[in-house]
Every structure is written in C-alpha cells, then in structure tokens.
C-alpha cells in the first residue's frame, strides 16, 4: 500500500512545489531526467544482485534512493552457439546476454567493470541508462586483469541496453557484449507471477548456419549485415526443451526483452499469445493488446501477458526466416488445465481440396478423384506426391531429395528405407527424433510429425519418394497409411 501511496504523495508534493514558470505542463509527464534526482543515497550501500539470463533479479523493493554497487566481470569464453558449433563469445558476466542489473530511479550506482586476467582484449561499457558522455564508455576502458570504476545517478526510469563500446564496436557487440539494466520507477513495477530476461542478437560466424566445429567472427558478413545466426540468449536452444521458460495457466508473465543487434531490428512476437501490455521501447507508457512489437538494435521493451491455455508458446523474431532458418526461437511452456471454452484444440480434420485444384496441384486433385473411383494408378500417386513433396518436404530434404549433409538425410538411393518401404510413411506420420544412419552418415536432427497431411497425401508422397532418385520403387496405399496412423503409438494429443 505504501508503494501505491508514494507516487500519489510525490505527485502532490511535486504539484505543490511547482510554481508558475517551472515548465511542467502535463500532469502525466514524469519529467524525465530533470525530475530524476530524488535526493542523496540513504542507508548503507547495497551490492546489486545480478542474474544470468533468463532470470531477472527480484524487485528492489525500496522507496528511497540508495547507493548501489554493481560489479560486472568481462569474460572471454568459448561456448556453444548451436549444437556441435562453438564460438568465442565476449561476455559481461560469463553469459550472453550479460547479467541483468536492476536498480531504482534516483539510485547512485557505483559501477565496477572488471576485465578477467586471461582476456585478450581491452573492454568497456556504455549503459544506455547513464546520463553522461559515452554512457560510461570512456570511464570504463579496462585492460585485461584490471578494474575500472565510475559512478552515475540513474535519472530516468526504463529498461536500457548496455554494451561494450571498444573498437571495433560492432565486433565487440557481435561477440555478445550486451545486456539489460532496469531502472524501476520510484513506485516500482506492479507485481507479476513470472519475470524473464530475453535478448536477441545477430551473429556472424565463418561457415554456414549450424556448421559444426569452432567458428570465428566474420567481419565481411557483419558489414554486409548477413548474419549466420539470429538468436535469443546467445545460443540456439537456449530456451527450448528442458530449458524452456515456464509458467502456469492463470499467471501473469512479464518479459524484459532487449535487442543487442549489432545490426538487426527485431519483430518480436510470441506465437499464440497477445501482449496485454507492451512498454514499447522500454519507456514509461504502455500500449495494450499488441501482437508483435518492434525492438530496435540497442533497444528494449517490456511486455506482459496473462496465460489462459496450457501448451507451448514460441517466442520468435517474426521476420520469420530468422526464426526457422537462423535460430531465433525460444519457448515458454505453460502448464495447467485445458480451457476448451477459450481454445478448443483441433475439432475437425477432413479433406478439403478447394483452391488446391490449381494447376500445380492438379495432380493432387486428379489422384484424389481417381482414389474415389478406385482407379488410382501408381503414376497418378507419384505425380500427386511430387507436387506435395515440393511444398512440404523439399524445404529440408531439398527438391532433388539430396538433403543437406550432416543436417537433413538424403532420400536418394537411401539405404534407410531400401529394405522396408513402410519406414517412409511412418517417418512422415510420426516424425523422427534421435540418431539415424543414412548411406553411411549419421544424422541427429528432428523431423516433426507431419500430422497435417491426410492419409492419401502421405501415401502419395511416400510412393513418389519410393519411385524417385534410384530408390527401389513400390507403392503405399491410403488404407495402409490409415492403419499406420491408427496403430501409431499414442503420441501426445495434437491440438
């Protein structure tokens, strides 16, 4: 209650003290840095609690300005950027993004930047929450094995990016040197059930996306703004599977999302949720009922949503190729009882040809019609399968069926299904997870179950694959697929 009262009181006092000519015109305005000075620090200095992503330190819970000591160590370290691929990250606090710092408006922050003795490079820090030239950069230029100190007063409330500003700035940022500092408004932020810290960054490495081995920085790609990876929290899969963010139905979740860049602007979106509130650009005002919010490089935003329905909610950069081809994916797993009144799950699954009867899918329509009359030929199945393959399978297995070595198995002269044709429709229906050997090479990717395909679509694609690229031939019928689907081990219910 005191928290609620404090701003009111402050506002009244402010108003009382505000004689004519002070320039304050709008009662809604916070007054910015000119009103950010809330008096000298009180009490003993406090050592700031820093957290690694995706965790956020607890609210400061203070109603008076304090002296806060922040100690942040720069560490250069090799870490995975994707499965089997490592990168030499330069970090604030040993993680990408760097440690989350949480202070209160009016606090005096004594900032210590330590550069680890085994660092090769000098580093510094520019905090966007600092009022002063360089944001602290010139005052914090620190050689390996040294510590710098500078002090600033947090005059403006908001969510701010910090980053290294040592030459070449772009390279230091591209190597992961950024993080967030939250300056709470004097009254604090409303309590929520969960708070998480997510930061997007673009990475420029030698080699291709997901190419294995140790990867070095590629300046040419960085200048051309052609990232190899676009990631949340510095590595692919940083917040998926076991590491997914967690919430329960009925809870209110607040995300603190930054974008370190160095180059890209993020179209931040959570699939299946609508942000009830977005403090766009990390500022004081919020917008309500937002689907996707833009986060500039070197900028941040806060957003809140209320979880109604259990399931996985996927965080993406909705510049969508970055999500599915460069790694900008994370997930929030919500647990709790279903609420069919709000979201039903799949209610109907039936064939609809409709405008698929366009020229390029003519073969599909022909096959479907022939199936009805019982005159479907293998050749019709192959042609229909070919058209369907082009839309669904070729993304990974490539239009020529050769796949991508080490990532997506080839379907050409494949020894994996040569002796058991049923493996093809089964793979389409159930997906594949874990290691498989194909033509002497090991693959360990995930193929999701293609449950959106109907029985005859699966049959046609399988028949096409079996009759192409030096494979032994054969035929899979709709009835066989239907039986397989029925017998399929009870997979988690598809929504």
């Amino acid at each position: 209650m005191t928290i609620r009262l404090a701003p009111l009181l402050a506002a009244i006092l402010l108003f009382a003290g505000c004689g004519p000519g002070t320039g304050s015109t709008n009662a809604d305005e916070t007054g910015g840095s000119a009103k950010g000075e809330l008096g000298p620090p009180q009490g003993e200095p406090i050592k700031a609690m820093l957290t690694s992503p995706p965790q956020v330190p607890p609210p400061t819970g203070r109603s008076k300005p304090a002296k806060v000591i922040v100690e942040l160590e720069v560490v250069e370290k090799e870490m995975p950027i994707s499965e089997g691929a490592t990168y030499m990250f330069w970090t604030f606090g040993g993680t990408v993004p760097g440690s989350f710092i949480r202070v209160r408006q009016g606090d005096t922050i004594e900032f210590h930047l330590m550069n680890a003795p085994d660092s090769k490079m000098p580093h510094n820090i520019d905090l966007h929450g600092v009022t002063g030239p360089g944001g602290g950069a010139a005052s914090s230029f620190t050689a390996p094995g040294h510590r710098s100190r500078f002090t600033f007063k947090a005059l403006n409330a908001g969510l701010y990016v910090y980053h290294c500003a040592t030459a070449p700035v772009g390279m230091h940022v591209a190597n992961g040197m950024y993080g967030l500092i939250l300056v709470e408004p004097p009254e604090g932020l409303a309590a929520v059930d969960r708070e998480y810290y997510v930061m997007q960054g673009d990475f420029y490495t030698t080699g291709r996306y997901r190419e294995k081995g140790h990867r070095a920085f590629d300046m040419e790609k960085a200048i051309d703004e052609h990232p190899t990876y676009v990631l949340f929290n510095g590595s692919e899969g940083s917040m998926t599977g076991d590491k997914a963010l967690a919430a329960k139905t009925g809870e209110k979740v607040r995300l603190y999302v930054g974008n370190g860049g160095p180059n890209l602007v993020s179209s931040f979106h959570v699939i299946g949720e609508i942000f009830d509130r977005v403090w766009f650009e990390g500022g004081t005002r919020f917008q309500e009922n937002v689907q996707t919010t833009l986060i500039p490089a070197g900028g941040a935003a806060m957003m809140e949503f209320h979880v109604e329905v259990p399931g996985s909610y996927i965080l993406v950069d909705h510049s969508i190729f970055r999500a599915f081809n460069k790694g900008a994916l994370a997930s929030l797993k919500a647990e709790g009882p279903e609420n069919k009144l709000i979201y039903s799950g799949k209610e109907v699954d039936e064939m609809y040809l409709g405008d698929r009867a366009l020229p390029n899918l003519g073969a599909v329509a022909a096959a479907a019609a022939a199936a009805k009359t019982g005159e479907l030929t293998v050749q019709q199945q192959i042609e229909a399968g070919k058209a369907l393959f082009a839309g669904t399978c070729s993304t990974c297995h490539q239009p020529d069926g050769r796949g991508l070595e080490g990532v997506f198995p080839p379907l050409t002269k494949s020894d994996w299904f040569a002796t058991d044709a049923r493996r093809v429709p089964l793979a389409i229906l159930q997906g594949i997870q874990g290691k498989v050997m194909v033509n002497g090479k090991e693959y360990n990717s995930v193929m999701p179950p293609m449950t959106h395909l109907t029985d005859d679509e699966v049959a046609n694609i399988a028949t096409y694959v079996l009759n192409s690229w030096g494979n032994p031939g054969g035929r899979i019928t709709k009835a066989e697929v239907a039986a397989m689907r029925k017998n399929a081990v009870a997979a988690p219910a598809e929504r």
Partner: protein
Amino acid sequence: MSRKAALIALALLGAACPSAGEGTPGWAMLPGGQFRSALALADAPQGSPVARFVMMEMPVTNQQFLEFVRANPRWQRDRVPTALAEPRYLSHWDGPTRLGNRSLPDGPVVWVSWFAADAYCRAGGARLPTWSEWEYAAAADATRRDARSDPAWRERILEWYAEPSVAVLPAVGTDAPNAYGVRDLHGLVWEWVEDYSALLVSADNREQGDPDELRFCGAGAISASDRESYAVLMRVAMLSALEGANATANVGFRCARGP
C-alpha cells in the same frame, strides 16, 4: 649504400655487438622502405619511410628473461619498484628466479611491464621496436613482404582473437618465418613497442566525429572501420589500454635495433 658496403657495415656491427645483425642467429635484417601504416596518419597519407633495422626473429622467452633478471637482480619481481612493474609482474613464474610449470623455458615471456621490456632490450644494446617497425614486419606473410590485402592474412590474425587464452603459452618459433625471417608476430602474444604510449586511442573510439585534439595528435584519428586493417588496429587498442607498469597474461615483447 652498395651491397658490399652494407655487408661490411654489418660485419663491423656484428663484431661490435654479437647479439644483433644479419647472420647473427636469432636476429633478422629488415630492409625498410616506404610503408603505409594502418593508422593512416593524417600527415602521411602516402606512407612514411621505415629505416633499415634488425629485429629478433622471435619474442623473448622465459629462459632469456630469467637470465636477464639473474644478471640484473633489480628487475626480479620481489625487488622491482611497483612504479616500474605492477605486483603481477612475472607472476607466472614459481619464484623470482625460477620458472616452474606455468611457464615453458622457450615460451614467450609475458606478465612483463613496458619498463622491464625496455630494460631487457637496453641491456643487450638494443631497444624495443617502434610501432611502425613492428607493423612493417608484421605486414608480411611467408612469401610476401606486404600481404595485408590478402584476406587470408587477416583471417590468421582474427583466428587468434577467436581462440581462448591458454594457461601456459606454447614455445616460440613454431610459426613459419615470414618473408623477412621473423616469426610469431601474430597468433602468440601481444607485444610492447617502444612508442606504445604515443598510440593514443580515445577510450571511447566513437568520439571520432568530435576528436579531442590532445588525444588524437599522437597516432592520429584511428579508424577501426577499415575492413583491411581493423585486425591490426585491435592491437593498437590493446596497447593503448595499458600503462607502462602494467603486465598481462598475453603481452610479451621482442627487441630491435638499428642496422
């Protein structure tokens, strides 16, 4: 100077100072010439002359530096004033005159201050190389004297930046000699240069649009934006972060002298 005269001069030099000169083991002769620095000094856009000089083929090793501090006890770590070498000076040795297992005898000596490096070179009748000399020597690859336009040359430098710092540095000399016969200029350690303190880079290099005259009068307004030279300029940034008494895990040195 004719070739013959030069040879005679060298022979004389060799006699006067057995530690340096062409044909002296461990030292390489660099002919010098017009050289365009990555620093692109505003007053010398076409480059500046680098005089003929002699340079150690490899960085100074722990063993060599150990002999130096034995002969010059005032440079031992328990005796040197902190104004000349910070407390971590030679901290990777087991004792003031003992190497131990964190420092290979033929590994490059690190954790040395500029003052100590300078003293070592002087004791041998030499000096630290200037930045220009160092950069000139480091522009070469195995076959060319100026390989800087080759992306492969730059990639090699960057590879070292992308490798974690190792606890015990490997031996010097495993690198192939460059066109001048000099090794390990890239990929092993940073190196002190004589005029490092003139490499004044702004601590916040983004101030380029508003150069502070005092700061920039030294090595000029360093622009690390050049695709060709930023890898070398990061070395300048590193040196500019240091004070003369500082020592770090990755900064070593080698000596040079006039011909």
